[in-house]
């Protein structure tokens, strides 16, 4: 009986996964079509690499990718530097002010970017941060910090303090407590948080386009150069999008193993 259960779940799970993935699959195969055939519903066609050739000839893909990586990884790293201590404190040593503080942090994200474009632009100009990777890292760190704190806090809260206490009673120092007990338990949560932060930074298309020009432009600007020109662009845009998503997909695959790995929650008991 159990075998049938697994089979049914497997089928349902896969059907849903395929349906959800379908638009991306469609975009991916369009990247290998010609512009003329780009919007036809054929599944069978002769693949060509000409769109990719066009994209590489036209844009300095490497520059855009490196910028995206610097900015996403950089801002996520700085975010964690700030957020993990704060979340640790808020989760394990909360005060009556903690809830309010968390909500206040989230409220710093309430202003839509379009409303604050000019003030930020003027500020960045004054500080020489326009078209500057540091400038982008700063703004993304601040943008993502509330998310990082909230998510880290959530995952920390799910760790029963009893374990840490038990470790302490057994004579572990603070460092040992954090590294050997806390870290393995919160790693899946922090990994998925890190992945989410990187993706938010990777796909952020408002500041990255408005505050950069030639030197610090990340992949979002790369994509903007392929969307909606006057003329057919579907195949090229698909190729460009595939190239923009590829590094993230690779990263996602790598951290997926972290997330799905067998967890030692046996320690809970």
């Amino acid at each position, binding site marked *: 009986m159990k075998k049938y259960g697994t089979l049914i779940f497997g089928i349902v799970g896969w059907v849903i996964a395929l349906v959800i993935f379908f638009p991306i699959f469609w975009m991916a195969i369009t990247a290998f079509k*010609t*512009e*003329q055939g780009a*919007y*036809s519903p054929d599944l069978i066609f002769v693949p060509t690499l000409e769109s990719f050739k066009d994209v590489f*000839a*036209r844009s300095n893909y490497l520059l855009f990718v490196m910028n995206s990586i610097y900015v996403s990884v950089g801002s996520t790293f700085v975010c964690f530097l700030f957020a993990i201590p704060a979340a640790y404190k808020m989760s394990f040593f909360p005060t009556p002010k903690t809830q309010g503080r968390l909500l206040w942090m989230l409220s710093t994200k309430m202003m839509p970017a379009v409303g604050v*474009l*000019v003030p930020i*632009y*003027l500020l960045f*100009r004054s500080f020489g941060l*326009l*078209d500057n990777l540091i400038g982008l890292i700063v703004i993304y760190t601040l943008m993502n910090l509330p998310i990082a704190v909230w998510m880290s806090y959530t995952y920390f809260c799910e760790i029963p303090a009893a374990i840490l206490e038990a470790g302490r009673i057994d004579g572990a120092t603070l460092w040992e407590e954090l590294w050997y007990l806390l870290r393995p338990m919160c790693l899946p949560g922090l990994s998925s948080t890190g992945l989410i932060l990187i993706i938010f930074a990777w796909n952020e298309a408002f500041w990255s*386009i*408005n505050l950069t*020009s*030639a*030197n610090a*432009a990340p992949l979002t*600007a790369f994509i*903007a*150069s*392929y*969307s*909606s*020109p*006057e*003329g*057919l*662009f*579907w195949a090229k845009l698909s190729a460009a999008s595939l190239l923009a998503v590829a590094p993230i997909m690779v990263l996602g695959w790598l951290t997926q193993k972290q997330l799905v790995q067998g967890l030692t929650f046996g320690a809970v008991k």
Partner: protein
Amino acid sequence: MKRFASPLFAVLITGVSVLAQQKTVTIATVNNPDMIELKKLSPKFEEKNPDIKLNWVITEENTIRQRITTDVSTGSGQFDIVQIGLYETPIFAKRGWLRPMENFPADYDLEDLFKSLRDGLSYQGKLYALPFYGESSMLMYRKDLFDEKGLKMPDQPKYEDIKKFADALTDKAKGVYGITLRGKPGWGENMAFLGTLLNTFGCTWFDMKWTPTIDTPEWKKAITFYIDLMKADGPPGASANGFNENLTLMTSGKAAMWIDATVAGGMLENAKESQVAGKMGYAPSPIEATPNGSHWLWSWAFAIPKAAKQAEAAEKFAVWATSKDYIKLVADDIGWAGVPPGTRKSTYDNPEYQKAPFAAPTLQAMQTADPTNPAIKPVPYTGIQFVGIPEFQSFGTVVGQNISGALAGKSSVDQALKDSQAAVARAVKQAGYPK
């Protein structure tokens, strides 16, 4: 070691001085095919000018316009050359944000550039931008379908002819639509085309006192005509179709007629990307009550912001990119049909270029479009498919949204016009008109 010192030192000095003199020119352009070609050929400019390095910022139109306007109006100096249009140039020039273009080599032939463009890009007699490409609008139709049904396109069609043709050509069972027109809301999207339709139907945006004249019988007649035509003979999803969606419909053979930018001619005739290459015919944009403003005038032109850090080098590039030599370069690279259209008379005098079926109608359109005289009666603004004031970008889009809503059946034409009248009145009042 000493004998190596002199030549080494000399090499070092030369190297350092070249590096020290290397000027980086940052260019902001739209991502249209002509500009992509320009980027592709730009190494030739860098070869001729080894001390200049070009940095490109290319994005789609609305985004680059936002970037450029923010940069130029705050004097931030992020860009040395900006690509702006007939709309922005007079506005920027009036505010003193652009450097006048004054240094031309002997063979540049300023007079060769179309007068309508030179005028449109000047302010108080000084030229502030060099046109890289120019376009007007015209009617593009499937000659093969016309021949099949025994229809003949008159030399100057009228909109009533268009309705007759569209009715005859529509065959929804076969998936062929008589006509496709822009419907996506936006001052540069549906309102670009509708602006010309409204002009030729005798409409105006404002009277001489800057009172909006939208809630008028002329507007109602024009917009009702547009909506009825699209309902009867247009494709579904019209209210979200912009230039690119319509181009896709045409190149895949799904529509028989299209009124839009003259640059579309080159794309429709490109056999690599279009299924209808060789089957198209081109005619002037239709008229109705008046020929004034029946086809638009637009140009993407290179201008140099006041705050540019490398103004001299920038001007060199702008001159190079709009010169006859550059046009010849493109012809050698991808053929005459692909050269930047609509800027120089000499291009249209060239027998090679005249072979393109869209060349003659484009030339006629470019020469007869007059932004200073866009309507049937005198008006306080210039611009055919736009009103040359900064606030137009916003209220033009709002009107576009309302009309798109009427097209999608979400409101009546009367309601759309009423709402538009109110919105435009508030917008210009806020901006301080009448001045």
